[in-house]
C-alpha cells in the first residue's frame, strides 16, 4: 500500500489530503474569503495560508487516523498559481518531508484536477473541461501528454464570473461563483451578451468589459435585475464552454467528458453539458465541490501516480513556478 499526503495552496484555498491506493482518507480545506467587491491578493492570501496550514495538517492526519510514519511520500503543488501562496505551502511540505524523512514529489496543479476527476468518476479516457478561476482548458490525452485542444485566449471563465461578482458586490462567501449560481436560478430575463468562440478557443474579456460597463446602467434604469444578469452571464459563458468541448470531442472522436475545476461544480454547467452529451450519445462525468474545488487530495492522487512510477523531486529541485503548462508534464502512468 502506498500512502501519499498532498499539499495544495496555489490560490485562495489551502488544502491537505491523504490518499491510500485510490481511497481518500482525509481532505480538510480552508478558504481565504475577502469582503464583497474585493479579490484575493498574493501577500494576504499567503498570510492566511501560513496562519492555518498547521491546523489543517493536524486535521488531515487525525481524520485519516495516521501518524507521519505511515506516510510514504509528500506531494505538493509546484505550480501553476500565485507565487506567494505556492511558496508558503511548498515550504511546509519540504519541512515535513525532511522531518519525517520522506521523499517529495512536485505536482502540476492542473494534472491534479484531472487525476482526481478520473479517480472519483472512473472516467477512462475523457475529454476534460478544466474550468476555474485561473484556468479554462479543453484537454485530451494522447501520447503521454495531456494536450490542450482549446483554451481561453485571455481571462479564465472563473475570473470573468468573480470579477462580475465584484462589480455588483456579490458576496465572496462561500465563493462568488456559488452565489452567482444561486441568484441565476431566480433570473427570468435573458439579456444578450457578446458570444466569442474561436474554433476550440474562447474569449471572455469582451463579455466582462461589456457587463462591467452596462451592469450599473441596466440595474439603475430597472431594465433588468441582478438575478437576470447572473442568469444571462451563466447561460452565455457556459454555452461557449459546452460548444468548445463538443467541438473538441468531434475533432478527437471522443465519447466521454469530464468536468473539473472550481467552476465545474456549477450544476447548471453540468446540466448543459449533460444535454449536449445526451444529444450525441456521449457520457458525462462530474464531481461535486469536495473534489472540483482545489483540495489536497487531488495533489496527493497525482503525486501517488507519479511516486508509483518512481518519480521523486530532489530537495534542490523542490522550487515552485507560477507558469506551468498542463502539456509540459510527461504522463508516465498512462498508456
Amino acid at each position: 500500500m502506498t500512502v501519499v499526503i498532498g499539499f495544495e495552496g496555489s490560490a485562495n484555498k489551502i488544502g491537505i489530503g491523504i490518499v491510500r491506493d485510490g481511497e481518500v482518507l482525509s481532505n480538510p480545506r480552508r478558504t481565504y474569503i475577502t469582503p464583497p467587491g474585493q479579490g484575493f491578493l498574493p501577500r494576504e492570501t499567503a498570510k492566511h495560508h501560513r496562519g492555518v496550514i498547521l491546523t489543517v495538517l493536524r486535521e488531515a492526519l487525525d481524520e485519516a487516523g495516521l501518524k507521519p510514519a505511515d506516510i510514504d511520500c509528500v506531494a505538493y503543488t509546484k505550480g501553476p498559481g500565485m507565487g506567494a501562496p505556492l511558496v508558503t505551502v511548498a515550504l511546509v511540505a519540504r519541512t515535513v518531508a525532511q522531518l519525517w524523512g520522506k521523499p517529495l514529489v512536485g505536482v502540476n496543479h492542473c494534472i491534479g484536477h484531472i487525476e482526481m476527476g478520473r479517480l472519483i468518476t472512473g472516467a477512462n479516457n475523457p475529454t476534460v473541461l478544466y474550468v476555474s478561476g485561473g484556468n479554462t482548458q479543453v484537454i485530451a490525452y494522447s501520447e503521454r501528454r495531456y494536450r490542450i485542444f482549446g483554451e481561453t485566449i485571455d481571462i479564465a471563465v472563473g475570473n470573468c464570473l468573480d470579477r462580475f461578482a465584484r462589480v455588483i458586490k456579490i458576496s465572496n462567501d462561500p465563493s462568488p461563483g456559488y452565489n452567482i449560481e444561486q441568484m441565476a436560478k431566480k433570473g427570468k430575463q435573458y439579456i444578450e451578451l457578446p458570444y466569442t468562440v474561436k474554433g476550440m478557443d474562447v474569449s471572455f474579456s469582451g463579455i466582462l468589459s461589456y457587463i462591467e460597463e452596462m451592469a450599473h446602467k441596466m440595474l439603475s434604469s430597472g431594465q433588468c435585475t441582478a438575478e437576470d444578469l447572473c442568469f444571462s452571464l451563466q447561460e452565455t459563458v457556459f454555452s461557449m464552454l459546452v460548444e468548445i468541448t463538443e467541438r473538441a470531442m468531434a475533432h478527437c472522436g471522443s465519447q466521454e467528458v469530464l468536468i473539473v475545476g472550481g467552476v465545474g461544480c456549477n450544476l447548471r454547467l453540468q446540466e448543459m453539458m449533460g444535454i449536449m452529451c445526451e444529444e450525441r450519445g456521449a457520457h458525462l462525468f462530474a464531481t461535486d465541490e469536495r473534489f472540483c474545488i482545489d483540495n489536497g487530495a487531488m495533489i496527493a492522487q497525482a503525486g501517488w501516480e507519479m511516486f508509483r512510477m518512481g518519480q521523486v523531486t530532489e530537495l534542490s529541485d523542490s522550487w515552485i513556478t507560477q507558469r506551468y503548462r498542463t502539456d509540459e508534464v510527461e504522463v508516465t502512468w498512462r498508456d
Partner: protein
Amino acid sequence: MAEADGVSARSVPPYLREAELIKQGAEARVYRIRFLGKSAIVKERFPKRYRHHVLDEKLTRRRTAQEVRSILRCRKAGIAAPVVYFVDLSTNCIFLEEIADSITVREHIAAAQASGQSVESLHHLAEKMGRVLAKMHDEDVIHGDLTTSNMLLKPERSGDLPLLLIDFGLSFVSALAEDKGVDLYVLEKAFLSTHPNTETLFQKLLQSYTAASKKAPAVIKKLDEVRLRGRKRSMVG
C-alpha cells in the same frame, strides 16, 4: 422550429426523414441525399437544447448564413470549397456538393505518421495549406475554426491532391491582421495538439503562408503577439 425548452418532438425536415445520417459533428448533423439528380450533403444545424433558445436561434441563423457567404466568397476567389446547391433558412439546412472519396488532412497526417513516413514527406502538404490560407486571408475571409479536420484532400486521377476548406460556420469577413493572426493561432494549437511532433510541419506552413501573401508580415507579427497574450502562458489557480 427551434422549440423553446427542449420539446422532444423535433421537426425533422421532410427531405431528411429518409436521408442517410453520415455523422454528427459539433455544429450539425450531416446527411447524404440526392438533390436534383446529384449526390449531395445536407448539413443540418439542429437546435441545441443546452443553449437558451434566444441565443441558439441567433447563433444558428448567423452561422448558417455566414457559412454560405464565406464559401461563395472563397469559391469566387478560386479557393476550393464545396459548391452550395441550396439553402433552407427555415430549417437551417445547407445543401452542399458531396466531395466523394476525400479524406481529412487530419486522417492523412495520422496515416502518414502511423506508416512511419518522415515528417519531411508531409512538407509539400504543409506548404499547400499555407498557400491556400494566405489566399483566403487575402480575401479577408477569417475561417474561425481552422483545424486539420476542416480541410479535405481529394485524390485525383492525375495524381493531384487538391485541398478543400470546409466548415465555415464560425467564419466572418475582416481585413484586420489581428483576426487573421488569431485564425492562425487557433490552427497552430489544434495542429500541434492533434499531431504531436510536427512542429517543423507547422513552420513550413507559416513559411509558405508568408511567401504567398504580401500582407503576411503584419499577420505573423500579430500571431507572435497573440501567442504571448493574457494568461495563456501562465495559468493561475
